[in-house]
């Protein structure tokens, strides 16, 4: 048996660099947005420290090749999520943060058992050298992955968490913390050492089911943040689907999807945060016609919604196309499932956008301030990056696929 942890247990590959660059970018955006919007004085320092922890743990998970180090960063991020969700010290938010922490922690504990079983079988924590996979260990680790990367049936913590978290951190939550699970999946199971078609088929179907079911739930939700939460669960399903079916298109598609979803969802989170700040409402039934209040925000959010739905000039199009190609390559039925999930995505996003920015069902407009320029700038940058990456998508694509090895 080799040592469990060494200082040299970090490595740089294209996936790691790509992911850590993305995480740091999302983190910086989150930080600037937090600076400009979190007015409350009291314990603001805590917020920034926790934000740094989220970004740092994301980078750590992306760059290590040691499962134990990965687990430590994993738990750090759980800790940071727990603190940020309960940042506003109101009872319901504290409850939400405890709930979040409990589920994440319990799943991580189960995962740790699985990791230790792998260690005992293989004598190493380095996931390149792990070749013996015990079925029980795999299932235990999968539970941890599903909980962190909110997928049915471990997704329940996300709705209360999104409802409680400050919108500045919400972007990082959507863009960084929720990707840790799929990153572990990519590192441990897709690196060529594990062959079990039943496992991958099962995970692919879980991902598709999660995507469809939560797309349906999003279609019926009225609360802005609940809707975003369901949407996130639905989109993470696509990432997991890409990684699970693998192949040339699957892995690249999953990576592109992480990129597209992180950019778009954090932008949407800030947009929703600005809408809440401007109108004081957090429910679709009380909101309408916001295009009159801020056309700029309307256009930017249209681009971000377009990226989530997968319309061409946005990077989301390529991500979705690649994942669907990989799914159809695997089995046509899986591809049909992915298309149904995509249709749900279109339906709930069309409804969301329509009711926010158009829909004249209210007799008078809600009172609204204009959103601040700092927030608008952040959303603008995120939308612009999504757009440019969509047009010049061969840049990230070439970078990802040049990585070899996988």
């Amino acid at each position: 048996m080799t040592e469990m942890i060494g200082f040299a247990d970090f490595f740089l590959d294209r996936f790691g660099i790509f992911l850590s660059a993305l995480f740091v970018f999302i983190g910086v955006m989150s930080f600037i947005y937090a600076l400009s919007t979190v007015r409350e004085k009291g314990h603001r320092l805590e917020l920034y420290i926790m934000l740094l922890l989220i970004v740092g743990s994301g980078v750590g998970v992306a760059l290590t090749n040691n499962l134990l180090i990965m687990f430590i960063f994993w738990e750090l991020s759980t800790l940071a999520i727990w603190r940020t969700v309960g940042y506003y010290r109101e009872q319901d938010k504290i409850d939400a943060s405890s709930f979040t922490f409990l589920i994440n922690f319990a799943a991580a504990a189960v995962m740790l058992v699985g990791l230790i079983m792998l260690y005992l079988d293989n004598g190493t924590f380095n996931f390149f050298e792990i070749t013996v996979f015990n079925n029980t260990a795999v299932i235990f680790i999968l539970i941890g992955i599903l909980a962190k990367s909110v997928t049915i049936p471990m997704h329940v913590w996300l709705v209360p968490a999104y409802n409680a978290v400050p919108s500045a951190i919400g972007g990082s939550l959507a863009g960084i913390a929720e990707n840790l699970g799929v990153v572990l999946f990519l590192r441990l199971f897709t690196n060529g050492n594990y062959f079990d078609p039943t496992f991958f088929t099962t995970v692919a179907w879980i991902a598709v089911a999660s995507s469809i079911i939560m797309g349906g739930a999003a279609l019926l939700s009225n609360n802005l943040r609940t809707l975003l939460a369901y949407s996130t669960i639905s989109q993470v399903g696509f990432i997991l689907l890409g990684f699970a079916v693998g192949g040339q298109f699957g892995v690249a598609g999953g990576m592109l999807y992480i990129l597209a979803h992180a950019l778009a969802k954090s932008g949407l989170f800030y947009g929703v945060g600005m809408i809440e700040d401007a109108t004081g409402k957090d429910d679709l039934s009380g909101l309408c016609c916001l295009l009159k209040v801020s056309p700029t925000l309307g256009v930017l959010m249209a681009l971000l919604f377009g990226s989530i739905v997968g319309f061409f000039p946005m990077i989301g199009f390529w991500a979705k196309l690649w994942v669907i190609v990989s799914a159809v390559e695997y089995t046509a039925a899986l591809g049909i499932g992915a298309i149904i999930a995509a249709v749900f995505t279109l339906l709930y996003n069309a409804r969301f956008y329509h009711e926010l920015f158009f829909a004249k069902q209210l007799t008078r407009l809600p009172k609204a301030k204009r959103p601040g320029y700092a927030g608008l700038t952040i959303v603008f940058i995120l939308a612009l990056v999504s757009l440019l990456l969509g047009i010049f998508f061969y840049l990230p694509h070439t970078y990802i696929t040049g990585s070899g090895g996988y």
Partner: protein
Amino acid sequence: MQSMELYGLELYYWVLLLPIACGLLGFLINKLRSYFDFLAFVGTLYFAVHIFVRTRTEVVSEVIGTIAGIDFRIFLDGMAGFILLFIAIFAFLIWLYSLRSMSRVPRERVYYLYLTLTLSAANGVVVAGNLVFLLIFWNVLVFSLYGLFQVSRTGMDSSHAARKAVTIIGVSDYVLMLGIVLLFVQIGNVNFPVEHKILFTSPWLTASFILMLVGGLAKLGTMPLHTWIPESAKVVPASTLAFIPGSLDKLLGVYFLFRISYHIFDISSFMPLRILLMVIGAVTIVVMAIAALLQKDAQRLLAFSTVSQAGYMVLGLGTGMPIAIAGALFHMLNNTLFKSILFLSTGAVESRTKTTELDALGGLGAKMPFTLFSFFVAALAISGVPPLNGFFSKWMIYQGLIEMGNEFSLWFIFLICAMFGSILTLAYSMKLVHAVFLGERAKKFNKVREARFELVVPSFLFAVACIVFGIFARELPLGQLIIPSLSFPVGEIGFWIPGLATILIIVGLIIGLVIFLLGTAARPRTSSVFVGGEVLGDEEGRMTGDNFYSSLRSFGMLDKTLNFSEGGAFDFYNYLRGAAAGFAAVFKNVINRLVVVMYQSIGKLIRSLGTLTSFLHTGELYNYVGWVFIGGIVILLLLVF
């Protein structure tokens, strides 16, 4: 494979990039917008003419990049050049029309941005020579459609129509995407035209063709994916209607169907698919024409009519006979011409009268002679009255159906449907002409003048094109545009000789006119209206055209069926939304609820365990000593055994 450079950039880059670049600049620099837009539309027309001329003699095929095994390939043949040219012509004339009709409406800036974006994307669809590459531009069209439909007529809210359009087109785009991906996975890179046409040898190939067909039919707007067109007709300005559902979607839809049916697959080898296409076409023709007959709003009537005409194109493509395919393409061209006239002229009328309700209009012919002329020509052409262009293209489709008799014994059903549809078309066109331009004029319209120059000129040019394309059908549109762009020979076209027929018709008309002037017109019968002693004003006695054929409603179950369909009973969109909401309710309230309840019960279980153990903590010293004692014994026993 020759280079097509002009001014330092390949021609296809010009038509792709110029419109959107100018559109963006115009959007940002509002003061110079009209100059940029001029550059965009005139420039695109210029380059499209160049491409058209070049593609008469040469074929351009160039791979501009390969990513993940997908060729991003440009392919320009005669067909593409022809479609590109007409897209540019229509865009240019629509822009000319919009200059007046859309000036100073709210969101005017956005309108032009999306117009240019639509133009770029449409050019992209035609330029692309690979299905995945084509899918990109196809996708942009959804985006631009949503934006364009948000620009409503003054005082109306078009956001619901926009959402409906984007949902139907978006969903069908996903279906198309699945079809393309399915084909890609089976046979690899799908560059078209393929060298050896794909035959329907496996069910998966058939499935991918049908999925792609759905995408093309939704774009073309045939039943049952048409419902966004009538929905938008009342709230979207005439220029948008004439551009998107009226002309552009027909061009692109037929282009795409033609490519997949004859350049990638070969449906003439597979009878069931041909019958499927023909059934869709025939049903669309008849049902939508009946629906058009009973409309009370001019734009809505035209919307149903445009769906009905799309049926002819699908019918023609479905026959698999070269002559009918050429006829379908010709009908596509003709339909874009006369449907643009009808939409734009209705818009011109609306610019003066502020309404398109047939009930309110009437008798405007004397006031708006130029509009009447174009409108009348278009109405005759759409009904297939010789010698106009609509007659000739329908004739070719009929001939194809008759030729099909050798292979398929039930061909006459389709022929009857097509001819019956033609009669219905004549009926609703005449209703429209009568209701808007003939009959008695309402008093408030006595001061109406001819519409502005910019609003009349595009329709007038189109009307001239309708006449020319009809009389010189063999020489001009067929000989120069359509037959050279087909990759197969088209047999002899019937015994119809347009030139001679025109002369005979003109002679006939003159004789008729002479008889009319000598006979009836000299002795009109006048009588005064008497109703219960009340003196009726002009307004009360006014006959409007909107009740033409309303007796049809009492025909069998037609009335109920129509009321049903007005209520959205046959609307694919409603079914889609209903099904989605139903499934979503199950997902959210049953499955998601179950998972949440599972977690809650785990929580309750833990809590009750805690409550149980809390009974052990009584706070009395003797109890604790007792527990320690019992525990010690248990440990001792464990150690011993």
